[in-house]
């Protein structure tokens, strides 16, 4: 299998000397293409920081992050922005959407940055919005959508540009358990259909059970890494 994500002794420390806190402490892991991985652990265990480092949103204190063979930990500025745009889809816990754009425009946004053809954009986004169950809501703005619908639009946006990896930081944290479970099931369906790599963080046991691989963090270190059926 092809390695899509690889971290080598990844460390993110805040503060110095006696006050130093290691949010991520020497994490080395490999995630292969098509995996559906949950990063779990208690609050403060380093889940969000690890996802930010993998996604190139933050700089590691030491160690390396390689995505599809590219060392993004060595990248910066425009190159890193372009890499994120073209290879990574993000779903955040909240504040996922641009308030002044409709659901369709939000989903199209990254493709617009990629300067994709309008016809291609419209067709792909329409198809994805149907798959995430937002048919008929394309022209609604975020304020006119429920929390679950927000996250579905975020999933649609993350998928639309056709990235290698989708990183989701506690995507269900602000949703009720049923809606959250539905969202993860939907992500899982896309994972199975498209073989896109999904990595998401959660501390919800119901959601964890849906992951094929469970990486558990504690104090910034991996304490277990199990594959489950």
């Amino acid at each position, binding site marked *: 299998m092809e390695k899509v994500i690889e971290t080598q002794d990844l460390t993110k420390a805040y503060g110095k000397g006696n006050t130093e806190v290691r949010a991520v402490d020497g994490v080395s892991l490999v995630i292969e293409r098509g995996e559906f991985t949950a990063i779990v652990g208690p609050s403060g265990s380093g889940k969000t920081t690890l996802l930010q480092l993998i996604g190139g949103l933050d700089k590691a204190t030491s160690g390396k992050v390689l995505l599809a063979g590219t060392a993004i930990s060595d990248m910066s500025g425009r190159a890193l*922005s372009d890499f994120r745009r073209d290879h990574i889809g993000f779903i955040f816990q909240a504040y996922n959407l641009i308030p*002044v*754009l409709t659901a369709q425009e939000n989903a199209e946004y990254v493709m617009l940055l990629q300067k994709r053809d309008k016809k291609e954009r419209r067709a792909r986004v329409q198809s994805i919005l149907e798959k995430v169950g937002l048919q008929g809501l394309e022209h609604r703005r975020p304020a006119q959508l429920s929390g679950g619908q927000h996250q579905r639009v975020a999933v649609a*946006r993350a998928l639309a540009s056709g990235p290698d990896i989708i990183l989701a930081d506690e995507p269900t944290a602000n949703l009720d358990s049923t809606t959250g479970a539905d969202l993860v099931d939907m992500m899982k369906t896309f994972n199975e259909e498209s073989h896109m790599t999904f990595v998401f963080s959660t501390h919800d046991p119901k959601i964890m059970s849906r992951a094929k691989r469970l990486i558990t963090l504690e104090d910034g270190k991996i304490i277990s890494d199990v594959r489950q059926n």
Partner: protein
Amino acid sequence: MLLLKLAIRNILRQRRRSFLTTLSMALGYFMAAFTFSVVEGSYGNIIDIFTRDHTGHVQIHAGDYLDRPSLYKQIRDVESVVGKVQTVPGVLAATPRIFAPSLAYAGDKTSIASVVGIDPKREALTTTLSQKDRIGDYLTGAMSPDGYDIVMIGSALAETLKLKIGDELVLIGQGVDGSIANDIFIVGSIVGDKDSSERIKVFLSMDAAQRYLSMGNTAHEIAIVTDSPDEAEELAASIEAEIADATLSVEPWQVVEEIFYNTMTADKQSNKISTLIIMAIVAIGVLNAVLMSSLERAREYGLLRAIGTQPRQVFAMIVVETMMLGIIGCIAGFVLGLPLLLQLTETGIPMPTPVDVGGMAFDAILAEVSLTTLGLPVILVMVTSFLVSLWPGFRSARITPTQALQAV
């Protein structure tokens, strides 16, 4: 397109704030347009009064007469020179003049007098002398039934010498040939008041002045007016080329009335500073609104950065948004302010006390509406909008996605 779409929607998103920001920009536009219109209008009016009073837009003299006037620095064959000047495109009218100091006698009264020889018809086409308040008829060049030349004198001279219409006036001076110039004249009219620029002048016809001073077909000055006063310098150059006489100097009114022109230019500069202060006040208000808006949307910019938007695109988004507010502000300021400015071009702002400018009553400050007075404020507002957007723009562009995520 994406930037424009986002900018328009973001403007509509906070309607009240956008309205107030636009209003302050509209006010800034109007204040600047008002200042420029009034300054240009009042100075345009003063320049017009000044140049049409006696200076003209261009003057010709012999040698350095302008700096060191002398009876002997004459324009030779003046009629030929005036003829050439009148062929230059843009010249509306040209008139020759003679200047000489003299002593004036009437009965047992004596006064100094400034003799001015004019061509009455050409002078009337060139300056407003014929339209000024006076007692009696404007100079025609005619003689009295007794064969004396009829003159028009200033009212201060008339008062000093106790002269009335029809009285005799004796002038004594020096002719250009070294002889003593003296002659008797008849007062045909009294012009202006005791404070006006004509107060001690004695206006003679060119013939009479040339005879009195033994000048032949010469003069000291040719005053020229044009239909394009703003192009006086270019016209002076054209006239100089046409007359092609190295003994003559051709100068625009800005050189002839150098002190007035410099004072006016300095005053205009101070008005520009006032306008910049107005724009600075507007800029602070707009900066506050734009900065507040960008701070509120920090998470949004972080999100945009996270999903691949370049910092320069975030920067451009804020600049475009602020510039659009500037455009709307200019349009609003233009639409709301134009009727008032147009009204001011007609009625002006009344002066509490009319001011005498060269014998002409200046009783209102008239505005001038032109591409400059309406266009320059647009540039000012747009430059202000751009400058104001720089700080929030840079600040927002530098937001890291992590900051946005932490804010969630």
